[in-house]
């Protein structure tokens, strides 16, 4: 059993666990490009591939925090570049509200980020991931909204 998923083994030194929702046409492609260019960045962000950032339901973000994610990233194409024409315009409106709602509930604003990262902006993807990991490492594990079992 890997040390990670079986609670019976002692947990290792804490590493932030950041869930990322990446749109398939831009950010996911940007992440791939970062790989092709062999850029290096910390392994703490794991991407869930979605067809468009507009597919990311605010309830998925709540679910991530509930299940113990230390931070959540929603990333997609720059407004205007969306493969589906208007997907990210709605993402922008929804997550401008959701960002303020999470802050209103007491979640540290750095624990939720939405960013536009295009298919060619591999360096920007690396920087966003690196910066987010360092910030969350400083902030420590997230206890808020975490599900009690």
């Amino acid at each position, binding site marked *: 059993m890997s040390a990670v*998923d079986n609670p019976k083994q002692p947990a290792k030194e804490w590493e932030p666990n950041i869930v990322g929702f990446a749109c398939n046409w831009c950010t996911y492609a940007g992440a791939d490009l970062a790989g092709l260019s062999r850029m290096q960045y910390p392994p703490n962000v794991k991407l869930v591939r979605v067809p468009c950032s507009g597919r990311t339901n605010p309830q998925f973000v709540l679910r991530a925090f509930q299940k113990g994610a230390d931070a959540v990233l929603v990333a997609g194409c720059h407004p205007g570049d969306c493969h589906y024409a208007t997907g990210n315009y709605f993402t922008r409106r929804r997550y401008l509200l959701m960002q303020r709602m999470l802050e209103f509930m007491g979640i540290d604003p750095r624990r939720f980020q939405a960013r536009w990262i295009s298919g060619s902006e591999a360096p920007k993807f690396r920087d966003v991931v690196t910066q987010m990991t360092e910030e969350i490492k400083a902030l420590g594990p997230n206890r808020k909204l975490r599900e009690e079992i």
Partner: protein
Amino acid sequence: MQRLKAFPKAKLTAVLETMSQKATVWVPSMIAGVSRFAPYRPEIDIQMGTNTAISPKEALFPSTEKIYTFSAYGIDGEFEPVDPSVGLQILFGLRSCDMQGILCLDDVFLTRGYVDDFYGSKREATTLITLGCVTPGADCFCASMGVNPVEHDGSDAQMYDLGDAYGIIARTDKGETLVKDLMATGLLSDTDKSQGPTSDFVLKVDSEGITEKLQQMFDHPLWDELSRKCLNCGTCAYLCPTCHCFDISEKKRNQHCGVKIKCWDTCMFSEYALMAGGHNPRPSKKERVRQRFMHKLRYFPERYGKLQCTGCGRCIAKCPVNLEITDVIKLAGEAKKDG
């Protein structure tokens, strides 16, 4: 006949302190703006004046309770039951209506061949101390439902409100040990005062023969008119000291492990009677509202011999549309048979 013991109201915190050495004492208190029974702790805001807005059934039948934990790594799965027992606890300051409510819960969970040990273990570990009412609340009508507000013989110990002091008299050996502990601390002294009758009720209703009357009223149009304004929310059921329905659900921590839980449910929700295949014998508000009042005033009495409404008035106080059980009883009483 044991002599009534008493202790000055000012000594209430001292009494609670001594009790809480041995057990967690649930006292009526104001928590975040809502009056409910909550475990005693020194700076708690105690509310002895009126009955609580939330019923004490939480102490014996919590809204969410773990049943067993399960996990499956690879092919072999395993599960461990969760021990439902809680430490010794005292339900302090119960009113007669809530005591009667607990008796109703006892009937459901402990009698008729199956003992629900989630409820049973807690009930066993609990000492019930009832307190007589001096003035009924705006929505109280326990007297109309055959419950004596001044005292209730079902509790382990009965307390009386003697103006500047509380009288206490044990009824069972659990009560006996409790009173002995208090005697040991010297807080108690004999008294010959007694609590007078409760002042007049604002809300009265004649519940005589309601069960028989309802036996011929299943298809009465009364239910149509009554249910039209209902919102089908769960407020009345979750506040009610006698509502005992629960659903089995689960909380999965991840793909491998999680916990099976039982949590409150109510016949008012549409999904309550939803059957496999999508059929729902109670599809609209009419059936659900009828089910609620029929169960309280007819099915439960037919099965257990006592009304399942103890007149605590909590549902009347918080119902968003004031669908009051007293009105149902009154209208059912006046209604001609089957419309």
